[in-house]
């Protein structure tokens, strides 16, 4: 019972490196899934969950800054548009940023302004923030499964 509980909680100590490879030991599946989910929901939270606190905070600040610049430039936060297949792909990329996407879209009703001077740049910043966070999710997966330090 205690063992079951420990697999669903945050890892108490940083995974010990394997003597053979120098890489951390793989986490149990439940912790790995939790880390990946947290990494998607909040940028950097997956790294914090894996005890990479400094890097997690750094990534959080960087992704949020990228998102903020994109919003200040009034870029487009992609949504699916019928007849334009690439918007589905771009929407997935934008949604990669996790909770902030839904807060902007449904909480703040952010849409961007196509006639704004920085519209194209802002769109690039917003999409990049989502893609950055997707890479962070993959990074958490690699760390948690013992493939990366």
């Amino acid at each position, binding site marked *: 019972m205690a063992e079951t509980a420990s697999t669903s909680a945050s890892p108490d100590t940083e995974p010990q490196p394997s003597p053979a490879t120098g890489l951390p030991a793989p986490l149990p599946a439940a912790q790995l899934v939790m880390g990946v989910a947290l990494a998607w929901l909040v940028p950097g939270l997956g790294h914090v969950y894996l005890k990479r606190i400094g*890097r997690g905070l*750094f*990534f959080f600040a*960087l992704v949020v*800054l*990228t998102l903020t*610049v994109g919003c200040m*430039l009034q870029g487009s936060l992609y949504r699916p548009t019928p007849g334009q297949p690439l918007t589905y792909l771009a929407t997935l990329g934008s949604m990669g940023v996790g909770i902030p996407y839904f807060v902007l879209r449904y909480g703040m009703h952010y849409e961007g302004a196509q006639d704004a*001077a*920085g519209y194209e*740049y802002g769109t*690039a*910043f917003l999409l*990049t923030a989502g893609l*950055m966070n997707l*890479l*962070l999710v993959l*990074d958490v997966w690699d760390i948690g499964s013992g493939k990366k*330090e």
Partner: protein
Amino acid sequence: MLSHFLLMVLFALLVSLFFTVLWRRERRPQVMLFLQLFFGMVLGGLIVAWLMYPFPSGPPAPIP
């Protein structure tokens, strides 16, 4: 203050910082990778802009 070039530099800065911390752990390799990525993107952007200069697509968009 808002200009195409400054926005490109800001974008290059953020992306370079991101990949530097994502891909490298030690300070010196981080600095080397950051410089490569940052100047690669900025100089690459300038070169592409220079190559596109003879083929304008229309009047430049107004930037405040």
